[in-house]
């Protein structure tokens, strides 16, 4: 399987703090990969470096054989990298449908029509309906996002990230703060994604993660601690030490 995403010795430093400290990763096309690790391990910063929201201080980011290390975020999005945000990041004063429309037009030439009503093509309409259906938002299209519940906003976050049928989807804690029912629904949405989309998932809910992914990367203090299939993760002593073990201590 060719690699969809390859990181080579990626470092992201904020002053003296090396949030990501030499991460090398290779994710095959179509794989479901989880990134786990305690708070402050560098998971979200790694996402920022992949999407271009922050520039890698050093190292290389290669997506589908192209070096994208120096590209600005919008150019990476145009190559098919889509993401959700850990903290809901939508257009609160716009309707669900307008949110999806902006997502669609971000990659389309029609975004520069300066005059007149937005005209939706048949393909855009079909993709909008598919995303609404997948994220279970049918019937909520005309509501402003700020008027939706938190759970529904997370669903919109998902819908916005998949409406363009991206090549790679980065999900930053898509189920955080949701009820068990809503979490199961999110898992369902992720499971239903077409297999040719590469999915990278940051998530703290182990049960959710381990049932969904092919491979798990555990980060600790900005470095890759372990990379293993989900069946081996729980039993791995290093992971238990930094992550599960600490959670157990906290619970106990």
């Amino acid at each position, binding site marked *: 399987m060719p690699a969809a995403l390859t990181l080579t010795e990626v470092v992201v430093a904020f002053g003296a703090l090396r949030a990501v400290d030499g991460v090398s990763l290779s994710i095959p096309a179509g794989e479901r990969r989880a990134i786990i690790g305690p708070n402050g391990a560098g998971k979200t910063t790694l996402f920022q470096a992949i999407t271009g929201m922050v520039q890698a201080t050093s190292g290389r980011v290669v997506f589908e054989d192209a070096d994208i290390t120096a590209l600005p975020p919008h150019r990476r999005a145009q190559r098919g990298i889509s993401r959700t945000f850990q903290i809901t990041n939508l257009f609160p004063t716009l309707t669900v449908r307008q949110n999806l429309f*902006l997502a669609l037009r971000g990659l389309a030439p029609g975004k520069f029509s300066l005059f*007149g009503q937005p005209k939706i093509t048949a393909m855009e309409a079909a993709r909008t309906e598919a995303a609404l259906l997948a994220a279970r938002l049918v019937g909520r299209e005309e509501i402003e996002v700020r008027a939706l519940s938190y759970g529904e906003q997370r669903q919109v976050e998902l819908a916005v990230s998949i409406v363009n049928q991206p090549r790679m989807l980065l999900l930053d804690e898509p189920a955080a703060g949701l009820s068990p029912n809503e979490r199961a629904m999110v898992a369902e949405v992720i499971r239903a994604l077409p297999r040719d989309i590469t999915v990278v998932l940051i998530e703290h809910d182990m049960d959710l993660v381990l049932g969904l992914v092919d491979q798990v990367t555990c980060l600790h203090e900005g470095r890759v601690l372990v990379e293993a299939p989900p069946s081996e993760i729980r039993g791995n002593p290093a992971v238990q030490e930094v992550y599960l073990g600490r959670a157990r201590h906290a619970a106990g």
Partner: protein
Amino acid sequence: MNRGMLWLLALLAAAVMPLVLSSYHVDLATRILIFAVLAMSIDVLAGFVGRTSLCHGAIFGVATYVVIWAMAKAGLPAVPAFLAGVVAATLVAALFGLLAVRTSGVYFLLLTVALGMVVWGICLRWTGVTGGENGLRGQDMRPALLLARENFYWLVLAVAALAAWAMQRFVNSPFGLSLRGIRDSESRMRALGYNVPLHLFVGFAVSGFFAGVAGAMYAFFNEYVSPSSVAMGQSVAGLLMAIVGGVGTLFGSFIGAAAIILLENTVSWYTDRWQAVLGLVFILTMIFAPEGILGTIRRLGAVTRRAR
């Protein structure tokens, strides 16, 4: 009655006004229309991009200067002079846009203040061209057909209506939606594949174009321009009109411009301290109707509709 009908009626009412008003009041109405276009151009940025500009008065004034200079010094006919003024204002706005698009919030505000002051300084000091403090005076600028103030009013009304319609179409276009997306979340827009600075740049230039249209009309209305036309006070006045009318309502700018210009005129009959009264009205607006006049009317309208 739908909203389109309402505005058509308002347009009709505005069109018959010169038949009943005194010539002094026709001039006042002309001034209101011109400043409403300036306020709308500011509202395009403030209401739909979330960027409050304090240099649109300067962009407006550049158009006024260029039109009067082109006619009085370069001997251009009225129409080319008008176009030259609009083009000059758009270019200045584009230049300002290049500098301002990477900023937001209070930094954007401060940068636009600084850019406006640069224009003011140039107009004040470049005496050979701008006439310095004396300013520039045009003579018999209006073509014969527009000498009657009613005719001039009707032309300004037509241009203002056209500009208002164009701005309305602009903010509701796919591009306008992308500007509202930037207002709500720049980082999400970047993640969706939008070149945010480029969109801001285009938005700023388009807004500056309309400020230029207003400024070029003002040249024919006033036939005189001095540094006070490009000073910060002009920008503040335009922004105040947009705010009093209702930021993000676009057409509210007509109401805001009318409210402020009429207030200024009425109060200055009684006292020289009309600015103090204006300040008081502005504070009261902020406290009791922060969405502005049209914004408040719309909100109350929505509440009564829901109650039915």
